[in-house]
C-alpha cells in the first residue's frame, strides 16, 4: 500500500509538471541538434523575442481563467501601438505621456469588451470577434495606413535597451508582469474571485462576489497588459504599422492552452503559461537553427498543441480513475 502511494505521487508529479518536462526535453533535443542553441546569446534572444507574447498572454490568461475569451488582443495591440506612435510623432506629445495615454487606451479597449459582454449577455468569444474588427478599422484609420518610422530612441529603449548593460528591458518588464499577475492570482482575494468566476459563475454570484465588477476588472487588466505588450513589440521594431500585432491572439491562446489554462476557465497558473510560451518560442528558435522552414514549423507547432490537449484530456480521465480507486 505504502509503495503504491509513492508510485502514485511520482505519477501525479509527472502529470502535474508534464509541460515543464516537455520544455526541458525540447531544450535537450535542440542542444544536441545545434551547437549554437545552448548559448547565452541565443537563449537571451528567445526571451527577448517572447517577452511581448508573455506579457499579452498574461492579460489573456486573466480573461481565460475567469471563463472568458478575448480574440481581439491582436488588434488591441495594433490600435494601442499605432496610437502611441501617433501621439509621439504626429501630435508631439512627450514620450512618457504618450506611453501613459497608450496604456489608458488599452484599459479602455479592454473595458469596452467587458461592458459589451456584460450588457449584451453574450459570450466574450463572440463579443471580441466583433470588437476585433472594430479595433482593426480604428487602427488603420488612426495610422492612415502608413508606417510611422523613426520612433523616439527613449521609446525604443523599452524594446531594445539593456539595464546595467546586460539585462534586456523587455525581459525585465516581462518578469515584473508575470510576478505581479502571479501575486494577484495566488495571494489576493481578487485572484480568488477570478478563479471563482471561471469555476462557477452562478455559485460566485450566490457567494456574494460582484460578478460584473470582477469581469470589468479582468478585461481592464487584460487591456492594460496587452497595451504594455504592444509598447514592447513596437519599441523593438522601432516603427509602427497597423499590421503589427494581429496574430498574437492565437499564439497567446495556444501558449495558454499548452500551459494548462482551460478554455472553460477556473484553472491555470502563471508558471504554466510562461512554460507554454517558451515551448512555442524554443520550438521556433530551435527549428530555425536546425534549418526547418517556416511552414514546416507551423505543422510541428500545431501537432504539439494537439498532443498537449490530448494528453490533458487523457490525464484528467485517468486521474479521475485513480481518485476513485483511492476513495475505495
Amino acid at each position: 500500500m505504502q509503495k503504491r502511494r509513492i508510485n502514485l505521487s511520482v505519477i501525479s508529479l509527472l502529470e502535474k509538471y508534464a509541460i515543464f518536462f516537455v520544455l526541458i526535453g525540447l531544450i535537450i533535443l535542440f542542444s544536441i541538434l545545434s551547437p549554437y542553441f545552448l548559448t547565452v546569446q541565443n537563449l537571451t534572444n528567445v526571451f527577448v523575442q517572447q517577452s511581448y507574447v508573455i506579457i499579452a498572454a498574461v492579460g489573456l490568461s486573466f480573461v481565460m481563467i475567469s471563463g472568458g475569451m478575448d480574440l481581439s488582443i491582436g488588434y488591441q495591440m495594433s490600435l494601442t501601438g499605432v496610437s502611441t506612435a501617433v501621439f509621439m510623432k504626429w501630435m508631439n506629445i512627450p514620450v512618457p505621456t504618450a506611453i501613459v495615454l497608450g496604456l489608458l487606451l488599452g484599459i479602455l479597449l479592454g473595458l469596452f469588451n467587458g461592458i459589451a459582454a456584460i450588457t449584451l449577455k453574450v459570450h466574450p468569444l463572440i463579443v471580441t470577434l466583433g470588437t476585433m474588427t472594430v479595433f482593426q478599422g480604428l487602427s488603420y484609420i488612426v495610422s492612415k495606413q502608413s508606417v510611422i518610422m523613426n520612433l523616439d530612441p527613449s521609446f525604443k529603449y523599452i524594446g531594445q535597451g539593456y539595464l546595467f548593460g546586460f539585462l534586456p528591458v523587455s525581459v525585465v518588464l516581462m518578469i515584473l508582469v508575470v510576478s505581479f499577475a502571479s501575486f494577484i492570482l495566488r495571494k489576493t482575494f481578487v485572484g480568488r474571485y477570478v478563479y471563482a468566476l471561471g469555476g462557477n459563475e452562478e455559485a460566485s454570484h450566490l457567494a456574494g462576489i460582484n460578478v460584473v465588477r470582477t469581469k470589468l476588472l479582468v478585461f481592464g487588466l487584460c487591456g492594460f497588459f496587452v497595451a504594455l505588450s504592444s509598447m514592447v513589440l513596437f519599441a523593438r521594431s522601432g516603427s509602427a504599422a497597423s499590421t503589427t500585432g494581429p496574430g498574437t491572439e492565437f499564439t497567446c491562446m495556444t501558449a495558454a492552452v499548452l500551459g494548462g489554462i482551460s478554455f472553460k476557465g477556473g484553472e491555470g497558473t502563471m508558471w504554466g503559461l510562461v512554460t507554454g510560451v517558451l515551448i512555442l518560442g524554443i520550438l521556433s528558435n530551435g527549428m530555425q537553427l536546425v534549418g526547418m522552414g517556416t511552414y514546416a514549423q507551423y505543422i510541428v507547432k500545431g501537432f504539439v498543441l494537439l498532443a498537449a490537449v490530448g494528453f490533458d484530456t487523457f490525464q484528467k480521465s485517468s486521474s479521475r480513475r485513480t481518485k476513485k480507486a483511492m476513495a475505495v
Partner: protein
Amino acid sequence: MDEVILSLRNITKTYPGVKALDNVSLDFRKGEVHALLGENGAGKSTLIKVISGAISPDSGEIIVNGQSHSQFNPHVAKQNGIEVIYQEFNLISSLSAAENISLGEEPGRFVNYKLMNQKAVEIFEQMNISIDPNALIRDLPCSQQQIVEIAKAVSRKARILIMDEPSAPLSVSEVAKMFDIVRKFRADGVTVIYISHRMDEIFEIADRVSVMRDGCYVDTVEISKTSRKELIQLMVGRDLKESYPSHKPHTNEVALEVKNICGKRSYDISFSVFKGEILGVAGLVGAGRTEMARLIYGADKLQSGHIFVNGKAVNIRLPSDAIHAGVGLIPEDRKQQGCFLDMTIAWNMTIANIRKLLKGIVIDRSRERKQAETYTNLLGIKTPSIWQKVKNLSGGNQQKVVLAKTLATHSNVLIFDEPTRGIDVGAKQEIYTLMCDLADKGSGMIMITSDMEELLGMSDRIIVLAEGKLAGTLEKAEFSQSRILELAAGYN
C-alpha cells in the same frame, strides 16, 4: 370500454438509497383518461419513464397489447403506440411546426415540404385548431407549442398518450382547449395517462385516478365516486418515521421580516421569522419557493416590497448586500450553485468571506486553514485533508462544505433551499442537528423543502406557497399533511 390496454405488474425500481418504485401494479384501460396523483417524489415520474421505456425496471413486467415485456425500451414503447408529452417540450425551436411534427419520419430521402405541411394541416384540422404549419416553434406561444407537441403524438398514431403536467404553462382558456383535444382522444379510444398536481383538473377530465405515495401504489378510484378529501387522505396517509432533533422555543424578536415582496414568480409575499425559529416553506414544484428565496437574498431583482433584518430596513440589490445584512442562502442545487467542484475544500469554505481573512492585501493562509479546519471538524466532514477537491466528496459532504461557506459569513438569518436533497440518512440527521444548534444560538431559519416528513418534523411554523403567492400559514398545532396539500393545491 373496460378492456385493459396496458398493465404493470410488480414493477420495482431502486436508485442508490431510494426505492423509487416499490412493487407497483396498475392497469390502464382502453379509452380512459387515467390520472396519476401523488406528492413530489411519490414516484409518478419514474413510473412514466418505465412506461415510455426511458428506464428499465429492476423487476416486474409490462403487459401492453397482450404482450409481456420485462425489458422495455423507447423503441418498443413507440411501436406499441406509447407517446409522452413531457413537462419540458421536446421541440426544436428553430424548425417549423410542420417540420417538428414530421421529425424523424420524413418519407423518402429528401424532405417533402408540401407533404409535410399537408399532414400538419390535416392533423390540426382534426384537432380543430388553427396553427400555421410554417410558423417556427420559437415564435409560437407556450400553449401552441404544447398543441404542436400533442399533434406530434397524434401523427404517430398514439394509442397511449402520457401527459406530464401539461397544464403547467397554460392559461385557463388554453387548458379548456387542451381538454377538448383530450376528450377527442378518449372518444377515439386512446388511453390518456394524465399527471397533474391540480386537483380541479383531475376532477374535470379524468375517469379514474390512481394515487401513489413514496414509490408505492396506494389505490385506484373512480372519479365519480370520490372526493378531494378522500384523494388527499390517500396521498398523505402515513406516519412520521424518522425522529427529528428538537430545539429551544424561539424568542419573540423578529430576525427577518419581508413585506409585500414582488419579483420573478413571486407576488406580494409577506411573512416574518423569529430568532431561534425554523420556518418551513411548503409548496408544489414550481410554486415559486426558490424564486422567493433568491429574491430575499438579492440573487434576483426585487421589483417591490421591503425587507427588514433585525428590525432594520435593508436595501438588498446583490447577494453581497444580503450577506452584509446578515442573510445567508444555502442554494438548492449544490453542484450548480453551491460548490466550486474543481477547488479544494478550504478554498470553497472561505470564498464567501475571503475579504475578512486578509493580512494587509494578501490572504492569510493560516487563518484560511484554521477556518477550514474548524468547520470541517464542526460539521464532521469526512475527508483525508482540507486540500481535497470538492468533486471527490460524497453528496452529503459537499452539502456540508456549502453550509460551511455560508456559515462562515456569520449570517443570523439562514435560508436553506432543499438542504437534504439527495444525501444519505446519516448526513441528513447531522444537518438537522446543526440546524437546531443554530436555532438555539438565535439564528432565524427559513427551510424550503419538498420532503413532507422533514417539513413537519423540523418546522416551528409553516408557510405554504401556491403559484407564487402566500397561500397560508400554519402554526405548529395546526400542522397536518392534508392541510398543507390543500393549501399548496390552491384551496383555502
